[in-house]
Each structure stands twice: as C-alpha cells, then as structure tokens.
C-alpha cells in the first residue's frame, strides 16, 4: 500500500479541505455559497438537501451535487495532482454517493459520510493504478495512423475492421468500449449509462481492448491487414510512441 493510499484510508484532512471550509473565491455562485456558508449552516443545508433527495426531490439533489462537487474535488486534488485522473475520481465519488445514498442517515452529519466516500474513491484509484501495471494493453495507435494517413482507403478499411472486431466482442465489453472510445463518455458517465459500477465498467472495457487487440493482430497476421512493418516488430517499434488505453 502506498503512502498516499494509507493517508487516504487514515482520513487525514487534506490541506485544501480545511481552507475550503473557511471560504474560497469562485466564479461559480453555488460553489461560493457552499464554501462561504458557516460550517454548521452548510452542514444543515447539505443534510436537508440529502434528506429531500432521498424522498426523490430532484431540485434538492441537483443543489446538493452542485454544492458538494467542488468540496470533493478539493479533497481529491489534494491527493491526486493529475487533473484528468482527479476528475475521474471526482466523478466516481459522485457516482458512489448516488448509488449509496440510502446509507445516509438523516440524523447524522452529512460531511463525514461524504468525505468517507470521497476518500474511498481516492483509495480505489490508487489500488487500481497499482493493479493495472502490466495489464495495460498497448496499442500502436500512431503507427497505425502513419500507415494509413496517406490512404483514405486505408482509413475506411481500418474503420470497417474495427467495426467487425467490435462485433466479435460480448455485449457487455462492446458496450463499454463503445461508450468510452466512440461516444467519448467518461468512465463514470459510461458506468451510469451501463448501470454498473465504474470499476466494473473499466474491467469490461479493458477486456474489450484486449480482445480487440487480439482480433486486429490476428487479421494483420492473416495478411488482411497490409502493413509495411513486419508484425513481429510491432512491440519493439512501439517503444516511446505508445498510446495506452486507460
């Protein structure tokens, strides 16, 4: 377990978190209200909105999510400095809050409940990053682009081969790959659309990428994929010029 992970589990307040509760300048009105309100008032308001959200009040729920997302972002950004990764974690935390909203008890303070979920999303991020390691599939995207940029015909063939390869995937994997890579949704958005957790969607997408890579590589070996580069050199040639799918 990394130091970041341990710290996240221990729940040490992030440096930005404390500052945020005192007050913060923001261009977003709701964010400013959430940050500047006295701690007790804010806590009471968030708790009230959550209670209403549990009863199905969509307006209260939107106000709640708008108010807490900058708070969650501050907690996350104190631990994760990569902006894109941090935004993913913020979205996962929002998704977890949505899925676990029935575990909030109205008589208890809202802040610790929300922060616990945010911290766990951070821990999940570090665990997943550690787990991913060697399992990442490397696709030589730039090479493929180089090979085909001179030929519109090549692009068409690549698209049709990708579509054919996508058709060979199981439904769940195809859905995950399509939502993320073709529709351009974030993992959290795609997870919400697919009705699964963000972790499960990532696993499906990862398996999908692997299967796609195998299918496309098979086609190259079979000669359907005409490349000037020998197939066996692909991995070696990819060094330093590799696009990793996350």
């Amino acid at each position: 377990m990394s130091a970041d992970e341990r710290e996240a589990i221990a729940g040490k307040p992030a440096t930005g978190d404390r500052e945020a509760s005192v007050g913060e300048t923001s261009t977003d009105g709701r964010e400013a209200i959430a940050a500047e309100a006295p701690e007790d008032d804010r806590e009471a308001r968030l708790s009230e909105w959550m209670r209403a959200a549990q009863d199905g009040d969509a307006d209260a729920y939107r106000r709640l999510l708008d108010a807490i997302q900058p708070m969650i972002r501050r907690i996350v950004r104190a631990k994760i400095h990569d902006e894109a990764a941090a935004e993913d974690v913020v979205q996962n935390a929002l998704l977890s809050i949505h899925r676990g909203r029935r575990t909030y008890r109205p008589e208890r303070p809202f802040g610790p409940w929300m922060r616990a979920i945010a911290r766990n999303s951070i821990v999940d991020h570090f665990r997943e990053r550690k787990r991913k390691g060697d399992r990442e599939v490397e696709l030589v995207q730039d090479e493929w682009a180089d090979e085909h940029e001179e030929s519109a015909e090549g692009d068409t063939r690549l698209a049709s081969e990708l579509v054919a390869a996508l058709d060979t995937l199981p439904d769940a994997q195809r859905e995950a790959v399509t939502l993320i890579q073709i529709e351009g949704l974030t993992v959290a958005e795609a997870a919400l659309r697919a009705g699964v957790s963000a972790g499960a969607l990532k696993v499906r997408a990862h398996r999908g990428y692997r299967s796609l890579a195998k299918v496309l590589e098979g086609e190259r070996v079979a000669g359907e994929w005409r490349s000037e580069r020998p197939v066996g050199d692909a991995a070696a040639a990819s060094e330093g010029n590799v696009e990793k799918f996350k």
Partner: protein
Amino acid sequence: MTSGTERLIDGLVEDLEPVTPAIRLRQAYAVVLAVWAAVLGLVLWSQQSPMGAASLFADGVYLTSFVGLILGALGATLSALAAGRPGRDRLENAALGVSAGSLLVASGVCLAGMLVVGAVPSPPGADAMCLQKGAWLSLLPAGVILSFLVRGWTTRPLRAALVGMLAAGALGAAIVHLSCDFLGAGHLLRGHLAVPLALALLGTYPAGVVLRRLRK
C-alpha cells in the same frame, strides 16, 4: 465544473428515485443479536439442560474463553455492520480492535491452560463435532449480517466479508460454548475458538464476491 462532471450530475439527477434510508446501526445490531439469542434459546431448550452454561463459573479458562467469544462476537458484529456505512470508519476499526483483542486473549488463556494443566485429551471426535456444530449455527447470523452489508454501501467488500464471517463464527461458537460441557483447554481452543477462524477462512471469499456483485 467540467462539462463531463456536469453531464454526469445531469444523469444522476435524471436517475434519481426515492429511497428508504437504511435502518439505524443500533437497530441492525439489535436484529443480529435477537436472531442469535433466538438460536441460542432454541439450542439450549432442545438440549433440556444447558450443560456448558451450568459449568460456566466452575473453570477459569472456560469462563475466560466464553467472555472472549462474546466480546469477539459483539465487536466483530458491530464492526461488520459499521463497514456498510460510510463515515463510521472509527467505530468500525475500534470495534474490530476489541473483537480481535478479545479472541486473541481467549486463545492465549486456552494455550496457557494447556501448558499449565497439561493437554487433556478430548473425547474422540469432540473437537470436529463442536467445530462443525459451531459452523452450522453461524450460518443464520452470517446471513443476517450479510443482508445488512448488501443493503449498505461497503467500500471494502472483502474486508467487510472477513469481519462479518468472524462475527458470525464467534456468535456460533458462543452458542456451542454454552451447550458443551467439556472443559479441556485444548478442546476449547480447537473446537470452540477455532470456529470464527474456520468460518473466516471458508466464507470470506464467497461472501466478498457476493457483496461485490450485489453492490454493482
């Protein structure tokens, strides 16, 4: 706010449905203990004479291991139930500490008893019989604890499953303890105190998988 997060919030608001808040932790705790008390009552009633209960104060090792099992069960149950509720981490960890400490002390006392008094041989098959009986009696409490975990939001499913299985095992072992009149320290260690460990070894992974799946 990034447009991706904004879109997600739109989606979450659209997806909103009314939910019933999970029952209070103390209520869930009371339900688990009530189920355990009912099973205990049934076992003692079916035995006609509560053999172990009668000799509870007759032997120090027997009493200590009973207290260890009870504290271990109460602590682990509380910890497991708290694991399904975000923001109750401190309670979860403190209760788990009490539970693990109690079970370790009870095991240590049994070991010491074996060394001081000498290993009293158990009746043939007694250890395995108590272990098996304890495991069976743990199933109902395990089901109740798991059902609360499934309806909660477990951030660490495998750990929650482990603690839940420890709790159920200790609850089952406490019933066996009260219904068994064999006082040998070695038997108490192998036949009674080993139940939580056995259940944790056998049940953690399947229960963790169930929790993970149902959480999705």
